[in-house]
């Protein structure tokens, strides 16, 4: 591989490593798994970089990161009980009482994190991409591989659920 190609890859793809790692942390919940998944994704992206011609490099890379996270999670499900993360369980609602207890304690930041973690993965990922990485609906649609209308309704459902789980802002109430 020419050094120039590595350079172009770094500039176009690896400049989005923070977004990639953030997504992986929220999907996999474990820093080592997240690192492994992002490294795996970077290698996959590098191998297919020659075929990347147009479009947004960040969305393209994040889509690969997301796939790697799903692969990692599938591999883990064999030997580890974890937060549901597959299509058959995506629609499962978390136990609302458990979530209530979860978010009652701790700092505001802990409460927010616990609420986001209690979301099913399909809602969690769009919230992370929208609120933290500030992707547009079009970009999220590219990353997640669903139509923009679906992105819109998932973001909306996620915010409604989070609003209900978080309740009144303790900072304002207190």
């Amino acid at each position: 591989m020419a050094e120039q190609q590595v350079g172009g890859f770094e500039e176009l793809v690896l400049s989005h490593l923070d977004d990639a790692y953030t997504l992986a942390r929220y999907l996999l919940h474990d820093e080592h798994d997240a690192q492994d998944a992002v490294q795996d994704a970077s290698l996959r992206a590098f191998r297919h970089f020659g075929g990347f011609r147009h479009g947004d490099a960040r969305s393209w890379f994040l889509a690969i990161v997301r796939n790697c996270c799903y692969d990692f999670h599938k591999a883990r499900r064999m030997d580890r009980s974890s937060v549901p993360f597959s299509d058959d369980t995506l629609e499962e609602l978390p136990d609302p009482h458990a979530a209530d207890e979860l978010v009652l304690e701790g700092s505001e930041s802990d409460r927010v994190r616990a609420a986001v973690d209690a979301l099913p993965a399909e809602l969690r990922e769009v919230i992370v991409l929208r609120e933290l990485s500030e992707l547009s609906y079009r970009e999220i649609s590219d990353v997640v591989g669903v139509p923009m209308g679906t992105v819109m309704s998932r973001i909306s459902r996620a915010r409604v659920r989070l609003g209900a789980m978080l309740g009144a802002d303790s900072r304002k109430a207190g």
Partner: protein
Amino acid sequence: MTCEQCIESIGPYFDGELSAEERAQVEEHLRDCPECTAAHRQLTETSSRLRAGLVRYEAPDVLRARIRSSLGEPARDAGPRLVPLASRSRLAWTRTIAAAAVVAVLSSGLTFVTMRGRAPASSLQQEVLSSHIRSLMPGHLTDVESNDQHNVKPWFNGRVNASPDVPRLDSLGFPLVGGRLDYIDGHNVATVVYTRRQHVINVFSWPAAGDDLAPVASSANGYHFIRSRRNGMESWIVSDLNPAELESFSRMLAR
């Protein structure tokens, strides 16, 4: 615009996804509708709490280094190179390691040897492992106990032929514990001890003839090894720490 349409649109409105015309319609409805205005306020508050409360992670330097290395980017330092062996999901990794190795070999001319844990342990590896396990028994870990490299390094002078490097890696999460003498493969061996959480990491080194050897990772009996040879010094890193972190450690040590 009906309330139903407005409720459907306030997300995209808030996220700046509407055309000017659509925005105007939503704003017009919000002016007259307290229910939708309350929903809009709730959404705004939820979003700002998420942005304020959620951590936006920064990719750690270790991860950047691992990726650079596995892409075979030409070395910017003289440190040894290591194909990533963090392989808890073996199927996915076998392919990526192969790809990374090809890229790395092509670009740098270095050769890599990867050895899987199922291979029978060499007798040298067995000796190193025995020393590691013995060091874990009560009272055997260190002969000189200090988290200061300026105490540990000089302690080896006169006890071994070549005093090992003792970099300080506390800030990177690998506190120094101390040093020890071992006897491996017919040599007095300098052993530097680090920890990572509850895991002990032993770094064995001794003078050895032969060409430089790029780091090679292997596993046996639940322990992980990284062997290398540089500037006439053989080095073995041994721990029950996971291979990914051990590999990071190896890289930091060689800096």
